[in-house]
């Protein structure tokens, strides 16, 4: 499998705090990679450097051989990176399907079209994307009326609109009910399984991580301390030490799932 994303020597300091130091990893095509770590481990900082919101002090990030460093988020999106937010961000004064249409309109470079009717453009594509996240029946509803879990699914549809090679999901299940979390991540896993997109996500919920991630990176104090499959990570004493100061709670949590 070829490499989609290549991260080398990524570092960032805030004042005297080295939030991220020398992070290296590759993401293979079709891979579903989780980035985990306790609060303050540097997950979000890492993420914000991948999607262009924060310039790194050092290091390189390249997507299919092209560097992402120094590019604004909109350019990174154009290069084929979709993203969802920890706190959902959608166009509240529009309907569900219109939100997806906006992404399609932008993808087809028609944002400066002054005379077409926006709501008549790319309806079929938008509906197909809503189908993918099982939101077709809510297409005509105002975005402001949606339940939080549905907003998350809508964001996923928006993020997939330009057929990205890479999808970045920051805490995708934050704020959701447990059953919704499982459903959302099962859906994401399904989309990854269909091919064409690789995913990097950060997550707090270990059930979600162990159930779906192909590979897990564990960050602590800005450094990658472990890397491997779910069982590798669970067995890793260093990870247990970081999370719990010892003990084997992951096993119990995983058996609950």
């Amino acid at each position, binding site marked *: 499998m070829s490499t989609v994303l290549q991260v080398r020597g990524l570092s960032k300091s805030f004042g005297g705090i080295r939030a991220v130091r020398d992070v290296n990893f590759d993401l293979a095509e079709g891979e579903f990679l989780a980035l985990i770590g306790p609060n303050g481990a540097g997950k979000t900082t890492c993420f914000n450097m991948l999607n262009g919101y924060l310039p790194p002090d050092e290091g390189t990030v390249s997507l299919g051989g092209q560097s992402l460093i120094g590019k*604004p*988020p*909109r*350019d990174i*999106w*154009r290069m084929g990176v979709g*993203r969802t*937010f920890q706190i959902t*961000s*959608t*166009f*509240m*004064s*529009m*309907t569900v399907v*219109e939100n997806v*249409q*906006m*992404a399609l*309109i*932008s*993808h087809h470079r*028609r*944002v*400066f*079209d*002054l*005379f*077409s*009717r*926006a*709501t008549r*453009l790319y309806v079929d594509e938008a509906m197909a994307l809503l189908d993918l996240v099982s939101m077709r029946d809510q297409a005509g509803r*105002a*975005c*402001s009326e949606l339940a939080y879990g549905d907003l998350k699914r809508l964001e996923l549809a*928006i993020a997939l*609109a*330009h057929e990205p090679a890479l999808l970045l999901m920051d805490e995708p299940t934050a704020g959701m009910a447990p059953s919704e979390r499982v459903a959302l991540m099962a859906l994401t896993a399904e989309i990854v399984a269909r091919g064409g997109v690789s995913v990097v996500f950060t997550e707090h919920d270990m059930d979600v991580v162990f159930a779906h991630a192909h590979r897990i990176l564990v960050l602590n104090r800005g450094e990658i301390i472990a890397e491997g499959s779910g069982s590798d990570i669970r067995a890793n004493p260093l990870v247990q030490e970081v999370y719990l100061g010892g003990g084997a709670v992951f096993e119990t949590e995983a058996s609950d799932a």
Partner: protein
Amino acid sequence: MGFYFAQLLTGLANASSLFLIASGLSIIFGVTRIVNFAHGSFYMLGAYLAYTLVTLWSGSVLGFWGGVVLAALVVGLIGLVVELTILRRIYHAPELFQLVATFGVVLIVQDAALAIWGAEDLLGPRAPGLDRAVRILGEPIPEYDLALIAIGPAVLAGIWLLFHKTRWGVLVRAATQDREMVGALGINQAWLFSAAFVLGSALAGLGGALQIPREAVSLQMDLSIIGEAFVVVVIGGMGSVSGAFVAAVLISVLNSFAILIFPQISIVLPFIVMAIVLIFRPYGILGKPGSEAGAPEAPEAPLTLMSPKAMMVMCAGLMALALSPLFTAEFTSVLLVDVMVATLFAVSLHFMMGIGGMVSFGHAAYFGVGAYAAALAVKFLGFGMLPAMAFGPLCAALAALFFGWFSVRLSGVYLAMLTLAAAQILWGVTFQWQDFTGGDDGILGVWPPGWASSDRVYFYIAFVLCVGGIWVMRRIAYSPFGYVLRGVRDSQTRAEAIGVDTRFHQWMGFVIAGAFAGLAGVVFAFSKGSVFPDSLGIALSIDGLIMVLLGGIHALAGPILGASAFVLIEDWVTRLDYWRFIFGTIILVVVLVAPDGIAGGIQRLWRIIKRGAA
């Protein structure tokens, strides 16, 4: 040397007056988030009341200072009444709606002052004991100026103590940073708001009262001070009293020296300083980003296409409008041209505010640039009417291109203030540049050519341009460009994350709105045959805001209803005595009855009727 020192002292004395009014405005904005246009009225009332009290107790030192302080207290009371009876009822309305209410208060106070004190300027007595000049470095300095120089910092110190040493002051500062949080902690916000409003009004009253030995008391005091007061508040940072002091000193001292080099500059200098400060410090000198957040607004409903019924009503309305010259008097056609011009102007402002989320306090700038460009093209370039009509909007678009580039770097009230600065700079230049623009005398003789000179023919020209312009803007609102512009307003983060260059998009929205305002200006110029600096003035910008907000900012039909109602009511009441009082009262009634604007009010009424019928 002595001369320059004297200039510095004059500057500092002016700074004190400016600080008093600006500090009150800043406190009110900080706590309540109300952009209080009535603040200038409180200032004017302070001056009038002090004039009456001081003349009544003339001669004694105690009479003078007692009169000044009592005037300030009475203005504080008036502020309390305004807050309790009007503003308190509409705190839950969209943030800017209160602005309309405060403008209603401006109109009412103007006519109340006219009724009580008359139209003549009143010259107040000098302050007893401080009515001479002392020589400093050989230059005569009025003693009263020295007293003012001391009063400014003294008041600042008093406010500082109040804010840092009392529980109430701490709450005020907390509310300035995050009023939801203060509410969540169980503080009675209503009480806090009233108290802040009273303190702010009293400070404005004090500022006005202290002016009576320095300038004549007149009915123009309110709007002449408000622009500058806003500038000081914005430069200092909204909600920051110390910032207001720094800004007042900065502007007044700069001004007292700048007029030595270039006397005409004093009208535009504050606005130029504000523009420069905002570009480098978007939240003002001592302002913090946090102090901008207000109550979250309820999300707007998705746009829908017109229902067939509404479409029929609209077509019938347009038909009636198109045929009106056939069965009405000529002056009705002239009035209807005014309505159409105002509507196009309001729709262009709504495009920017409602759809683009960029509130403008200076939209008249582009109306005026359009009108002036056409008039100048006729006068200097010998353009015919039609080429001039194309030239005007083009120039307005260019002006919007220039000022918009700066404005879209900011958001919220700061953006609004920068647009105000842009408009005031253009107004100042137009007003002062006698040789080119005719200054106050305007440009006359901008009439349509012979074939279009009858009111009826011109009506149809205006009809085509205005209705056409409105149609195009509506079309754009439904286009991908318009939708994306609304998207940027809803969530900048999301728009950026789907590949939109949000700033550029807003900039282009600004330019489109400017071009159509320019078109309205052009139609206006040829219908009146002349242009005056008023067409770029703050009053017209406020009229536009009132039309949009009264109409209802969340509906595309809002500006159309708002502008028509505004012009027709204005046309009717201006024939009456004390029309400002009546007009202000009408505005207040609409604000209180329909906090969602006329469009929202009609929708609610319609639902009630339907429910009643069912």
